[in-house]
């Protein structure tokens, strides 16, 4: 009998469930069971949850506790906002469900550790969305494992999202960061070192199989009034070392619609003793130049000026950029990987254990940005 499981979805539209749910639905091993959430979410969140349920032709169950009792549910895709994610993940793990988690794992280290404990005690599988399942990342893993670059001397990464109407931040002063960082995800802005930096942080530790040891970070407000008004950063840089003293640099942030011909610079340069390997998520690509009106940025959606969510982008009349067409970007690979792990009963390479370590690096970056000091890992607590 072929493998089959039921997937419960926590939170709907205006979360990354907009992307994850279709990816799971496309896999014949997976049946979407329902959309659910905590019972006391506000009316707007409930409406968004109902909308995704309706679009997928599945029930909406208002109470997560009730939906976890459904016998046809074996796994849960959790996209609740960061401030609610940890307690929901713990509840689902304790209910014996495998966890597929939006990134980053949790805003506080103790929450991340609590998730790890709950998952380990429950004996369930877990996975956080990341870039490790992308074809270009897998190719890099093969090359590194095969000794293509030789000994790794340094790694430099840039992950920049070319979204949002930039040029509105007031410039001229340094950002004063706070620790611990608050306000991860708001309607009009997110902490972008947290939101985007998680990708290169987790990718580099996965590629090298090494842990971070020191972190020096700075955060900034360069592009968006919205981030500045909410006192969250739109950009951050990290100088780190891995085990063995390997230097790592990371630049991550949201840089605006017009900063890149596609979705943003997304590149990792691995400097080795034998070769330098450049991983570029925008390569290979087609480049199309035609006698057609140039692409123009969409008008900002009042509830989503940064174009976080596909639902709001559609409402705002967003049309995709068409000059660069990366060939191997795969929106379904991460869901498929998680299902492969469940089917084979093998742990994910980006389980909550690895995800918690990435959370620790992020928090160290914020702590460094707030204090001006190099932070050594492991962080206390």
């Amino acid at each position, binding site marked *: 009998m072929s493998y089959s499981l039921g997937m419960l979805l926590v939170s709907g539209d205006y979360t990354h469930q907009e992307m994850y749910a279709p990816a799971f639905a496309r896999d014949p091993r997976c049946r979407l069971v329902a959309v659910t959430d905590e019972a006391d979410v506000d009316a707007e969140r409930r409406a968004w949850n109902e909308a995704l349920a309706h679009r997928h032709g599945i029930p909406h169950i208002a109470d997560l506790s009730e939906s976890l009792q459904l016998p046809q549910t074996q796994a849960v895709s959790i996209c609740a906002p960061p401030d609610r994610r940890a307690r929901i993940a713990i509840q689902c793990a304790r209910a014996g469900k495998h966890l597929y988690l939006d990134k980053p794992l949790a805003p506080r280290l103790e929450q991340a550790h609590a998730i790890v404990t709950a998952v380990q005690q429950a004996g369930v599988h877990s996975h956080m969305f990341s870039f490790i399942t992308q074809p270009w990342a897998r190719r890099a893993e093969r090359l590194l494992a095969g000794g293509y670059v*030789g000994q790794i*001397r*340094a790694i*430099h990464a*840039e992950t*920049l999202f070319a979204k949002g109407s*930039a*040029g509105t*931040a007031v*410039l*001229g*002063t*340094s*950002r004063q960061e706070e620790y611990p960082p608050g306000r991860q995800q708001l309607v009009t802005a997110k902490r972008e070192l947290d939101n985007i930096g998680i990708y290169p942080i987790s990718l580099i530790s996965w590629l090298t199989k090494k842990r971070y040891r020191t972190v*020096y970070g*700075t955060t*900034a*407000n*360069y*592009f968006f009034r919205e981030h500045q008004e909410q006192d969250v950063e739109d*950009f951050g*840089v990290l*100088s780190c*070392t891995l085990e063995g003293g390997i*230097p790592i*640099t990371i*630049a991550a942030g949201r*840089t*605006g619609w*017009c*900063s*890149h011909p596609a979705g943003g*610079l997304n590149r990792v*340069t691995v*400097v*080795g*003793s*034998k*070769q*330098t390997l*450049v991983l570029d998520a925008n390569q290979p690509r087609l480049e199309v130049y035609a006698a057609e009106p140039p692409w123009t940025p969409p008008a900002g959606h009042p509830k989503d000026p940064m174009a976080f969510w596909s639902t709001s982008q559609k409402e705002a009349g967003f049309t995709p950029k068409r000059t660069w067409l990366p060939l191997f970007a795969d929106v379904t690979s991460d869901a498929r990987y998680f299902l492969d792990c469940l089917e084979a009963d093998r742990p994910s390479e980006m389980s909550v254990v690895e995800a918690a370590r990435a959370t620790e690096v992020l928090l160290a970056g914020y702590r460094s940005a707030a204090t*001006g*000091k*190099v932070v050594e890992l492991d962080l206390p607590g």
Partner: protein
Amino acid sequence: MDSKLFPAVEDVIRSGRIGRPVFVRWLLLGQCETPLKRLTQAATIARGWLGGPTIDRLYALGSPDDSALVLSMGFQDGTAAMLATGPEPAPEARIDILILGNRGSVCFDSSGVDGALTFDDVLLDQGLQAVIEFSLRHREPMSGPGALRS
């Protein structure tokens, strides 16, 4: 390369097309006898691209005797730069520049050509080099006007 690249970058910045430069990221990969000097000279140029702001903090990684160096700089106006040197086993040197402006970006990638830079016309800021070396040796960030003499 220098005689073409640097004026071209400066022209773009002066044009205002990318708005106000806020961040420079520069990788310089290639065999070099004096990587610390090279890093210092590149930092001077990068600072110029940002409008010449006063350095507020600086952190360098690596060993002064090694070619794989990383320099993170923050300036009093909030702008920043991150530069790295390193070995490049391939015959040709490679450089990679990203300048983010608040309304756009300019990138340069030397793939396919020899990215060797001579920095012939760039004066070495000995004070800056000394501070970078201090940070390297002591593995400490440097900050504040007292620590940064450049």
